[in-house]
């Protein structure tokens, strides 16, 4: 009897500890604290050091020599970013390109989402899968597809010349136009999805009431549908704009020498120049620039995830 009871008590105790709510829910908390939040503190720290030829290639901030703790903070990297017009131009270029691409995505994506939400029920799932499917295949390969289409001997130029519309191939690849096109192409599904989920929940009775009361459909759209889908538009725009500002692959593959985007500059600063402190300072400034959009997106997403429950 005793021999049987003891292990039971023991497993009971182990179980109580292991499956305690706090313990179970503490795991993801600690994981994210360690692998998401702490790294940002390190980026901030290293952005305040100066680069040296060493492994790792930066000076320590805190030094303990002869019982004195010395803290060396170097704001030189930030002053350097301000003094060199290249960096300011790169930030401005990124924001401009990302904004333009977001607007184009919205103009294409909103009508698509609208048509999907109004489609018969059994079609909606198929259409949703069709819009999302490209984003599940390789991002890299979808950007690469445009290299073959836009190039000087590419498909589009050959086609236009065959039609006789142009005599010389147009320079489309390695231009800012190609970068915007690439971002729109790659991020369009992320614009359509939140707008669709928003529109599909729209109360149809409101629209019926409006039309019963003699509202014309365009007026109904402007005064009811559009304001009620504001949250979806905001979420979709943030899902496109924020990652697009830091985009590296698209400007690298489709952009030209005059394409200045901050993601690419950061990459080159880190991998080619091996200047970790400047790369970190670039990341911190980018993060500050994106703080407001990120907070806006978080507020929307948190509301989405918390309702009902």
């Amino acid at each position, binding site marked *: 009897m005793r021999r049987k009871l003891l292990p039971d008590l023991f497993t009971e105790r182990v179980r109580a500890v292991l499956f305690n709510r706090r313990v179970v829910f503490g795991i993801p908390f600690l994981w994210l604290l360690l692998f998401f939040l702490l790294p940002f503190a390190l980026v901030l720290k290293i952005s305040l050091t100066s680069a040296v030829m060493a492994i790792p290639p930066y000076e320590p901030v805190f030094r303990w020599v002869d019982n004195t703790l010395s803290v060396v903070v170097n704001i030189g990297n930030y002053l350097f970013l301000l003094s060199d017009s290249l960096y300011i131009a790169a930030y401005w270029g990124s924001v401009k390109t990302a904004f333009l691409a977001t607007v184009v995505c919205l103009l294409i994506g909103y009508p698509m989402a609208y048509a999907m939400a109004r489609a018969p029920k059994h079609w909606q799932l198929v259409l949703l899968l069709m819009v999302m499917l490209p984003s*599940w295949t390789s991002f890299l390969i979808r950007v690469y597809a445009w290299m073959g289409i836009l190039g000087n001997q590419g498909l589009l130029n050959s086609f236009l010349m065959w039609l006789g519309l142009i005599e010389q191939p147009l320079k489309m690849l390695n231009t800012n136009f190609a970068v915007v096109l690439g971002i729109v192409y790659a991020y369009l599904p992320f614009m359509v999805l939140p707008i669709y989920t928003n529109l599909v929940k729209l109360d149809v009775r409101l629209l019926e009431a409006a039309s019963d009361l003699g509202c014309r459909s365009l007026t109904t759209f402007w005064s009811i549908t559009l304001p009620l889908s504001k949250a979806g538009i905001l979420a979709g725009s943030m899902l496109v704009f924020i990652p697009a500002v830091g985009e590296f692959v698209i400007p690298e593959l489709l952009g030209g020498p005059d394409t200045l985007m901050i993601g690419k500059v950061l990459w080159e600063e880190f991998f080619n120049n091996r200047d970790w402190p400047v790369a970190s300072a670039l990341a911190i400034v980018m993060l500050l620039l994106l703080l407001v959009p990120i907070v806006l997106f978080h507020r929307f997403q*948190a509301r989405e995830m918390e309702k*009902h429950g």
Partner: protein
Amino acid sequence: MVKSRSFSFSKVMLVLGLLFLYLPMFVLIVYSFNASRLVSVWAGFSTHWYGELFRDEQILSAVWMSLRIAFYSASMAVCLGTLCAFVITRCKKMRGRTLLSSMITAPLVMPEVITGLSLLLLFVQMAQTIGWPVDRGMATIWIAHTTFCSAYVAVVVSARLQEVDRSIEEAAMDLGCTPLKTFFVITLPVIAPALVSGWLLAFTLSLDDLVIASFVSGPGATTLPMVVFSSVRMGVSPKINALATLIILAVSLIAFIAWYLMRRAERKRLQTPDA
């Protein structure tokens, strides 16, 4: 009627938008069967580039490496993401919940260069302080991918959790089920479809990531996107077209199976009288 006019405008946009999304992929597929190396010249049908692809040791070993990392990352991300989803939808009064929910939504939009750089700096600092990781490679990529994939899993699972009928869980507990048993017997089967789609989403995200993996990887671990990227940088290559075709086919097949299963489940639900 005015109404049908605006309706058909959006319909036209939907068709055009879908064409815009699919034409470039269609071009890739067609040109993967081109015998010529040049993009603009069609030199007849050939499966030559597929043969080349399967003889490329570098690509094959990178595929294997990427598949393994994606499998481990997706599995871990499902565990972490599901726990996060539970905290966010169920434990309204828990301390630190707001912090957790911001840490889980931020990776959805965080530019990859920032995530990659910050994680690399963490791993370098860890190596200095606690002596691990000595070499960056599979393990560090696994941690990085798990972290950002968890966010996507949490979104998918919390959407499903909101629809779970709490009264069934409460009934089970009233009848003497422990919370743990209730989870496995009642909640888990209900959210299982979300876990599967979350796992698949995390798998494709991990398989596709170039930027974060480039930052946190060492010389030992080369993933498929890294190989594709270094080859694509040089220009268009028919071998990559063949690889792209295979990826598109695989994803389409899985999406088709998912659609078929969902449709069948939907029909079953409609057939049961009390649903």
